[in-house]
C-alpha cells in the first residue's frame, strides 16, 4: 500500500503524467484538509448524510418487520414473494429516471433510491434467517406450551439477529451506491454532486477526496454495525475463528 502511494506521488511529481490527470496523495490530502478547514464540504456532507440516513433507516424499519412476518407466515410469503423477487432482479439504479419524474431532483429522489437499494437485501436476509431457525428449539418450546408470541420473542428473534446484521451490512453498501449514483445523475448538492462537479472542472484532487469520503463512510458504517452485532451476540457460544 505504502509502495503504491509513494509510486503514485513520484510519478505525479516527475511530470511523467500530468498531475491534472492523476493528482497525487499529497495534493489529495492538502485539498482534503483545506476543504474541511474552510467548511465548504460540510454542506455537501450533510445533504448526503441525511439522504443516506433517511433512506437506510427507512429501509431497515420496513424490511426487518416485513421480513420477520414473511418468514413466519407462509401466506404472507406467498403474497409478497413475487414482488420481492421481481424487485430483487431489477438493478434499482435503473429506476432513477422514473423516481426523478416522481419526486424531482431534490433530496427525496435520493432517499427513495437509497431506500430501494437497501430494503431488498435486508428483507431477504431477515426472511431466510427466520426460516433457518433451529426447528428443535421451536418444537421443545411448543411442547412446553409456549405461546406463539413467546416462541417468536425468545427463539425466532434472537436466532435471526445474525442474518439481519448480514443484510444490514449488505444494505449499507447498496445504500451508499444509491447516494453516489443518485447524486451523479441529477442533484443540486451532496458529495456525489461535488465529485461530478469537480470531474467536469478537472479538479482531480477534489474528485479523489470525494471518493475517499465514500470509502471512509462505507468502512465506518460497517464498523458500527459490527459493534452493534457483537453487543447482540454476546450470549452466543463462540465458534471457529471467533473462539
Amino acid at each position, binding site marked *: *500500500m505504502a509502495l*503504491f502511494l509513494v509510486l503514485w506521488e513520484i510519478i505525479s511529481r516527475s511530470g511523467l503524467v500530468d498531475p491534472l*490527470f492523476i493528482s497525487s496523495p499529497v495534493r489529495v490530502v492538502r485539498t482534503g484538509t483545506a476543504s474541511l478547514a474552510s467548511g465548504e464540504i460540510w454542506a455537501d456532507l450533510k445533504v448526503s448524510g441525511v439522504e443516506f440516513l433517511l433512506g437506510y433507516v427507512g429501509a431497515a424499519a420496513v424490511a426487518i418487520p416485513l421480513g420477520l412476518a414473511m418468514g413466519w407466515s*407462509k*401466506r404472507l410469503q*406467498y*403474497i*409478497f*414473494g*413475487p*414482488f420481492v423477487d*421481481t424487485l430483487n*432482479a*431489477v*438493478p434499482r*439504479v*435503473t*429506476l*432513477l*429516471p*422514473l423516481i*426523478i*419524474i*416522481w419526486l424531482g431532483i431534490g433530496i427525496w429522489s435520493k432517499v427513495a433510491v437509497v431506500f430501494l437499494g437497501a430494503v431488498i437485501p435486508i428483507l431477504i436476509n431477515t426472511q431466510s434467517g427466520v426460516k433457518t431457525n433451529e426447528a428443535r428449539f421451536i418444537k421443545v418450546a411448543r411442547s412446553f406450551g409456549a405461546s406463539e408470541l413467546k416462541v417468536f420473542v425468545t427463539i425466532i428473534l434472537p436466532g435471526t439477529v445474525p442474518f439481519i446484521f448480514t443484510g444490514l451490512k449488505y444494505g449499507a*453498501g447498496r445504500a*451508499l*451506491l444509491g*447516494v*453516489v*449514483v443518485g447524486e*451523479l*445523475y441529477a442533484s443540486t448538492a451532496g458529495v*456525489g454532486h461535488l*465529485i*461530478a462537479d*469537480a*470531474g*467536469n472542472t*478537472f479538479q*482531480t484532487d477534489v*474528485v*479523489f477526496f*470525494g*471518493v475517499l469520503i*465514500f*470509502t471512509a463512510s*462505507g*468502512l465506518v458504517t*460497517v464498523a458500527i454495525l459490527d459493534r452493534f452485532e457483537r453487543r447482540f451476540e454476546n450470549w452466543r457460544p463462540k465458534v471457529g475463528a471467533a473462539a
Partner: protein
Amino acid sequence: MIAPQGFYSRHERAILGVGAIVLFLAFWEGLERGWWSDLLQPVIGAEAERWRIKPIFISSPALITQAAYRMFFVTGEIWRDLGLSGLEFVLGIAIAITIGIPLGLAAGWYRPLSHAVAPFLSALNATPQVAFLPLIIIWIGSGFATKIIIIVLLAVLPIAINAQAAVRTTDPRLIKVADSFGAGEWLLFRSIILPSAVPFLLAGLRLAIGRGMIGIVVGEVYGSSGGIGMMISQAGSRFQTDKVFVGVLTIVAAGVILVEVLRRIERRVEVWRP
C-alpha cells in the same frame, strides 16, 4: 401434518402469488385509466380525482406492453441499443474474469501476495465504485472504453474476492494427502484447488452479472451514443415513462436469463460432487 386437501390448499402458493400480482397490475392500470376515481366519485366527490394519475407519471401495464411491442417488433429501435449494451457487457465481464479469477486465486494461494492485495481489495470494496466514473471520464473521455472500464471495475471485485475465499476454504486434508504423495504445486492446483473452487467462482460470477448490469446503466448515462442505459435516461428526461419501463424490464429479463444460464452450467459442472 395431514396431507393438504382440496383445490385451494393444494395450490395455495400459486393462487396467492398470482392473485397478488393480478391485483397489483389491475390497481396500476386502474390508476392510469381512472377506474378508481370514477368508482369513488359518488362517495367522496371531487376528492376522487386524486385517484386518476397522468400516464406520464406512472404509465400502465397496457401502455408498457404496447410500447414494448412497438420497440421490439414494429420499429425495432431497441435492437441497436441492446446490441451495443450487450457488447459492452460481454467485453466488461470477460475482462473482469480474466483479471479477477487469476488475481483472486493467486492472492488466496500466496500469503505475501494476499497481504499486499488485501488493503486494496477492502478499500475498493467499501467504496461505491461508481464514484470513480468522473475520474475515468477525465482519463479516457466518455466513449465505449469508459463504459467497459466501469463494468470491469464493478464486476471484478466479487469475482476476485470469491476466488480468494475459494482457495482458503479448500479442504486442507485433501491438500495434505496430495502433498504427502509428492504432488507438485501445479498438479495440486489443477486437481484439487480448482475443482473445489468452481462453486465459489460461479457464485462470484452471479454477483458480477448484477453489478455489470448496474455498470451498463450508470456508464451509459454519461454522454454515450447508445445503449439501453442511454435509452432509459433519455426516455426519462422526455417523460416517456412507458419506454423507461420497457428498458428496465429488458435489463431485468437479460439478468434473469443470464443467471439461469449460469445455474445450468453450475449443475453441469457439479455433477461429480456427491
